[in-house]
């Protein structure tokens, strides 16, 4: 996003705002989806985050990329949604993973070994706590650099590296653990 388009957006130019939305909506939607893991919630969060970003556009100082700044706003929105989700339906949320797991296991494609590993990895990632899970998602799904992750999460570069290293060690260990009994059974 070039400075000129941003300046036009700040001035309220509808064409510039339209191109800003077009350029960023899909990536922002994927970002929200990766945090909330629910397409409907992600739609709402994308909308809310974009409008919040537009309202706060004058605060954006171009110290980081516009996408990074947008992601940091969306992260806050998504955290708010997660808090509401937890408050609203603790019991429903508790039964949801079971339901999802059953639905997935009924799909024959999931039985393929490659899927099995990938699925086991997803399970391991989803079990990480937020401070380790978010850097993993930002690095390996959104392909952000460690510097960009630091800016989105508001932590320093060393902390990003340390969290990613710990997460990788943890995921590697979980995967080895998950593979062990299966090998013995074969």
């Amino acid at each position, binding site marked *: 996003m070039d400075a000129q388009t941003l300046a036009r*957006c*700040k*001035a*309220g130019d*509808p064409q510039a*705002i*339209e191109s*800003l*939305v*077009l350029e960023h*909506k*899909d990536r922002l*939607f*994927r970002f929200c*989806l*990766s945090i909330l*893991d629910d*397409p409907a919630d992600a*739609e709402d969060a*994308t*909308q809310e985050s*974009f*409008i*919040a970003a*537009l*309202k*706060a*556009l*004058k*605060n954006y100082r171009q110290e980081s990329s516009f996408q990074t700044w947008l992601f940091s*706003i969306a992260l806050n929105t998504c*955290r708010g949604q997660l*808090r509401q989700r937890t408050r609203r339906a603790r019991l429903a949320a508790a039964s949801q993973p079971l339901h999802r797991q059953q639905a997935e296991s009924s799909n024959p494609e999931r039985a393929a070994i490659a*899927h099995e*590993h*990938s*699925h086991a*990895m*997803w399970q391991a*990632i989803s079990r990480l706590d*937020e*401070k380790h899970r978010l850097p*993993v*998602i930002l*690095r*390996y*799904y959104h392909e952000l650099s*460690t510097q960009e992750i630091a800016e989105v*999460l*508001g*932590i320093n*570069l060393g902390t*990003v*590296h340390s969290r*990613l*290293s710990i997460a*990788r060690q943890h*995921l*590697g260990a979980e*995967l080895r653990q998950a593979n062990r009994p299966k090998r013995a059974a074969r």
Partner: protein
Amino acid sequence: MKPLTHAQTQELLQLAADGLLQPGQRAQLDAHLAGCPECAAYASELDSLQQLITSSLHERWGQPDMPADAGRRLQEQALRTRPGAGIGKLWLLLLALPLAALLAWQLLAPTPLTPSAPTETQPASPSATVAPPTATPSPIPSATATAPFAPTLFAVPAQTTNCREGNSSQFDIVDTLYTDERYEPLGRGRDELWLQFRGPVSGVRCWAYVGNLSVLLNDDEVQLPDVPESILPYLAYPATPTIPPTPEPTATPVPQCSDGLDNDGDGYIDMQDRECSDPTDNNEAN
């Protein structure tokens, strides 16, 4: 150049995974990997793990675009939104606060205040004691007068955050701010890097680093430097504690023949042991 250990190599591989390797380190790493099957296996395992993480996340979510109807709704709403409207609210707040304060003062303090400056030198003018800063009396909007709204300012930690006696890790931790809870800051440092709170458990004033906190003004996230001083004052940091020098270890070892122990395990202690020639002898065994 000193050869790398396995541990150093594995840390360099972790740095490489995060794109943080320095140019000189790459050659060093490659040289070690070429001759070390153990580290080469670690590198290969790390590579496979990263590929699996990537494929797993992409399999989970794919690369979906925002659904078309939701995209249209977003476009429409974005076009109705005035960019910078959040800041507009802030200016409104800045205008409303002094007006509300002035009105409240006039209502609550009907008797004129006596000036604290020497009264003899100034002409006694009752109207001057509560005169507004400008001579033109501007009418106060009735909405402001009837419903002055107090701004709400909160900090929300993104992770569990230490609250310390002062503005560095040299200060003791006196309380903890927990993830996603809302805490009301009392003030901030001039460098905009630390916020002061009342510790939720200890009740004492403590400082937390802003890097771990989101600042919400009337529920909108704001950058700390954009929060007006009238809402969050600047406060002085306490003096940095002086760390007492670590006491030197007293390096006067007690000789084995006077330490009260059976050092060689033969059942005889110190001078009872025939192997001790005198109390300064440092070998009970021979």
